[in-house]
């Protein structure tokens, strides 16, 4: 553990470099003024300003001064350290300096971008610079430590994103654990009949990938399972996975349906999750014919044997391979992985939350997901779109933006609804020849071949009415409206209020974060945005990374996405994970704590406080000892050390106290 010793590098020579960041900083902060100010600060030997410090010429300024021996430590006043600290540290190191003889003053995010008054902004910038200088004076050369990275990858969520990520990583030769909560992988995509805009069949493109997952030698697939706990850090995560009992032995079951046919419930009578309740299933079931793994599962909530123990359980006899086992217990698997990719997806908006659309009140009003199942050849109606009375609808209304772009529910645009509404319009028309009315706020069709698809639908004589629907009811004002669902909406292009009588309504529901997104993010120690989507490290420059190193995001868990974007992002997330793994080791910030042994009284206050048990007591020397490999550098122990005998690299008491003095005193 390196211990600060200022004598080793003599009287500090501080170089201060103020960045204009184009005009981002310069238009509110008087750079010239700050330069003048910085020059007067103690130990400052060089002050320069430059348009873009992060550019090569900018970095070169620093490197040159260092090589010329003008400076031995550096302060850059520019953007947030979270943005460019690494950049400048590298520059300093490349010039032969020590990366940690460096401090950044955040005069963009914390000053120029949030302050209107130029004088106030300049004062604040000065204070931050003074603080950085005061602190860097006490900086010490440090070495990064590095730890090896476990090459295995955990992927959470078996939708299209998780599947694609798993296959990509597995094909790269990595061992992959794919954990899915449901009894089968496939996610939402498996429920669709066709995909926009190409209208190729969802199953045809998805199921091969699903079976590839099943058969891939590098992939361990755990369905009907959930991550129960995550410990450790980038490159070295310890993960607990809870595998719920499915009461059917995965190895033995061949998915022959015999047990299902044999169930005491002759008629299926429990809402079928996969068909979003449009059909019924038995307590023992296989979600759908291409389920992966193709293994039956018993629902403990509805199985008579499990609930009462008083069932003749003919299923057991029916199974020639004796796969059914009511004694199955929950299993906790413990695995070590180096990287984690979250692909936990989304849930659809509950249309009954918009009471004026009558979902759940009037018959023949469906959510788009229900219609997806209805139009699916393998779905509850064999692909037929039918009214509750069994007839074909003659007129169908499709209401866009249900639970999207609406301050009463969700503000965001769900991005996929316009396109899938077009797709559903096409499919319904194709199957019923009904008149289709789309009610939209704006048609949002950015994407390859998307606008063309919209054009195509226009040619197919699908009606488009621009206006948010006010209400859907059975209130007829004219004979032709009798017995119909009447959609009232303002046609904003014509400027009239329309009443459109239809037989069936499709509510194009938006996408929402999973109900338990907040628990999941806590589990993996990442953040959620206000809306509840997982928060990426940077919206543009790090869209698949999180603030927790080694945890990456794929698909709709980060925000609404269509299939192509999900797959693309899954690829990106996997690439990031592979980059991390193939680097072989991760460098750890050397901001670890260390004990001043000669003055540690061995009071042991610190030992119980370390969340990583990185501090132990040396009974011989009677002092506390920090294990640098385990220490994550939070500094809790340092703050509580009663005699100031514990310090933290990059955050010693002296450095922080100096920074405080700097930030209040100089301006």
């Amino acid at each position, binding site marked *: 553990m390196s211990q600060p010793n200022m004598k080793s590098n003599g009287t500090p020579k501080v170089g201060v470099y103020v960045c204009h960041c184009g005009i981002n900083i310069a238009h509110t902060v008087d750079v010239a003024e700050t330069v003048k100010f910085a020059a007067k600060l103690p130990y400052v030997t060089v002050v320069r300003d430059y348009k873009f410090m992060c550019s090569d010429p900018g970095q070169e300024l620093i490197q040159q001064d260092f090589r010329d021996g003008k400076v031995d430590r550096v302060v850059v006043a520019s953007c947030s350290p979270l943005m460019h600290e690494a950049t400048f540290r590298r520059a300093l190191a490349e010039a032969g300096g020590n990366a940690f003889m460096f401090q950044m003053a955040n005069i963009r995010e914390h000053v120029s971008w949030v302050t209107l008054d130029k004088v106030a902004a300049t004062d604040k910038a000065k204070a931050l610079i003074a603080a950085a200088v005061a602190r860097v004076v006490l900086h010490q050369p440090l070495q990064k430590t590095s730890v090896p990275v476990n090459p295995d990858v955990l992927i959470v969520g078996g939708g299209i994103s998780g599947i694609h990520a798993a296959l990509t990583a597995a094909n790269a030769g990595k061992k992959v654990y794919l954990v899915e909560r449901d009894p089968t992988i496939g996610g939402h995509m498996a429920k669709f009949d066709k995909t926009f805009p190409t209208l190729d069949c969802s199953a045809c493109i998805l199921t091969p990938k699903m079976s590839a997952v099943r058969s891939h030698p590098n992939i361990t697939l755990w369905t009907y399972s959930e991550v129960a706990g995550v410990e450790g850090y980038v490159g070295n995560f310890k993960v607990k996975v809870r595998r719920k009992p499915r009461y059917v032995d995965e190895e033995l079951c061949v998915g022959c349906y015999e047990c299902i046919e044999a169930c005491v419930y002759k008629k299926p009578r429990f809402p079928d999750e996969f068909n979003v309740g449009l059909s019924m299933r038995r307590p023992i079931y296989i979600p759908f014919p291409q389920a992966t793994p193709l293994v039956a599962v018993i629902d403990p909530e509805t199985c008579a044997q499990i609930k009462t123990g008083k069932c003749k359980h003919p299923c057991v006899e029916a199974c020639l391979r004796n796969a059914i086992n009511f004694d199955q217990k929950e299993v906790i698997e413990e695995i070590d992985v180096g990287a984690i990719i979250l692909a936990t997806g989304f849930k659809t908006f509950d249309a009954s939350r918009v009471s004026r659309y009558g979902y759940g009140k009037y018959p023949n009003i469906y959510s788009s997901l229900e219609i997806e199942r209805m139009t699916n050849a393998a779905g509850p109606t064999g692909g037929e779109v039918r009214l509750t009375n069994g007839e074909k609808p003659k007129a169908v209304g499709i209401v866009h933006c249900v639970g999207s772009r609406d301050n009463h529910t969700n503000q965001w645009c769900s991005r996929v609804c316009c396109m899938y509404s077009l797709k559903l319009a096409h499919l319904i028309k194709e199957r019923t020849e009904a008149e289709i009315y789309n009610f939209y706020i704006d048609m949002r069709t950015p994407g390859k071949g998307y606008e063309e698809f919209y054009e195509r639908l226009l040619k197919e004589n699908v009606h488009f009415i621009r206006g948010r629907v006010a209400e859907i009811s059975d209130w007829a004002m004219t004979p032709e409206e009798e017995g119909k669902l009447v959609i009232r909406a303002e046609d904003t292009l014509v400027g009239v209020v329309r009443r459109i009588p239809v037989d069936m309504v499709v509510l194009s529901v938006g996408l929402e974060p999973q109900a338990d997104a907040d628990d999941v993010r806590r589990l993996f120690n990442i953040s959620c945005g206000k809306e509840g989507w997982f928060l990426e490290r940077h919206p543009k420059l790090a869209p698949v990374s999180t603030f927790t190193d080694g945890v990456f995001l794929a698909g709709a868990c980060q925000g609404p996405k269509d299939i192509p974007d999900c797959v693309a992002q899954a690829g990106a997330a996997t690439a990031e994970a592979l980059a991390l793994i193939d680097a072989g080791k991760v460098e750890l910030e050397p901001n670890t704590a260390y004990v*001043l042994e000669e*003055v*540690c*009284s*061995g*009071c*042991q*206050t610190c*030992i*119980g*406080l370390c969340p990583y048990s990185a501090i132990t*007591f040396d009974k011989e020397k*009677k002092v506390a000892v920090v294990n640098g490999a385990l220490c994550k550098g939070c500094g*809790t122990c340092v*703050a*509580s*050390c*009663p*005699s*100031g*005998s514990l310090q933290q690299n990059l955050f010693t*008491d002296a450095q922080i*106290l100096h920074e405080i003095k700097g930030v209040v005193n100089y301006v």
Partner: protein
Amino acid sequence: MSKPKVAFYWCASCGGCEEAVVDLAEDILGVVSAVDIMFWPVALDFKRHDVEAMPDGSLAVSFINGAVRSSEQHEMVEMLRKKSQAVIAFGSCAHMGGIPGLANMFGRKELLANSYFDVPSVINDQKVLPQTTFDAPEGKLTLPEMWETVKTLDQVIDVDYYLPGCPPPVKIIKEALNAILTGQLPPKGAVLAPDEALCDECPRRDTKPDKIIISKFVRPHQILMDHEKCLLAQGLVCLGPVTRKGCEGSCTKASMPCTGCMGPTSRVVDFGGKALSAIASIVDAKDEREIEAALMEVVDPVGTFYRYSLPTSLLHRRYVQTVKEGE
């Protein structure tokens, strides 16, 4: 050659520091033979004018104990500073303000009111308060003025060394005297005591559990104390971990939790702040209410954590709101 000349003086103090010198027992003879004591109000009959008469810098060392809180004390210590080559702040009060320093929780007005009106044993119908001057038939009488705020010695004069403790333990007094006599003194400004916390030499140190986590704080009278076990581990607020060693745990030995008279180590800038941080950190609670409850057992935080050091604390005294600017 003539022996080095020394002076002892007391300001706001209890006299315990004087006792400590006497506690040198027969060793004091050694001291007396080694030095000439030029001034020691408690023991020898010298007067102010005797000191005044001394040439500047003629004293080798002045040992000054007690905090400074009156014009007289201020005048005397400034005079002694002039006359001495070195000044040693002797004992907690001179070093950090000590017990008198707790007066900084109040102002002069409150203090006088308390002593001259409120104390039950006082009868003072005319509400007489000490006056700095009084015209008596014999002429003008004067009294020193009591300050609003108690100061440490180094807040009024330049101090060379500090001898901590209430009172300073005999052992470190001896070591200091030897250092002075042999001229082997550390750099100016040093505290003449080991720069390590008490736990290191506490007789109970080996009974300390590996992890100190406290679910309930208690005060000595509330429990039947284990007379070997670490006091902090028993839930008593013992400041041993925060406080300089040098006393060999004379209090903890006697089942009295350390109250911090030796002051902080050189690495701590505010004794109370650090002590509080250490004690609060080891509370065994996460829920806000539980934490509050557990810490309510720590009565009078200021008196507990700044018992000897309020005037050297970064806040210096109880903050009294001043009128807003522009008003």
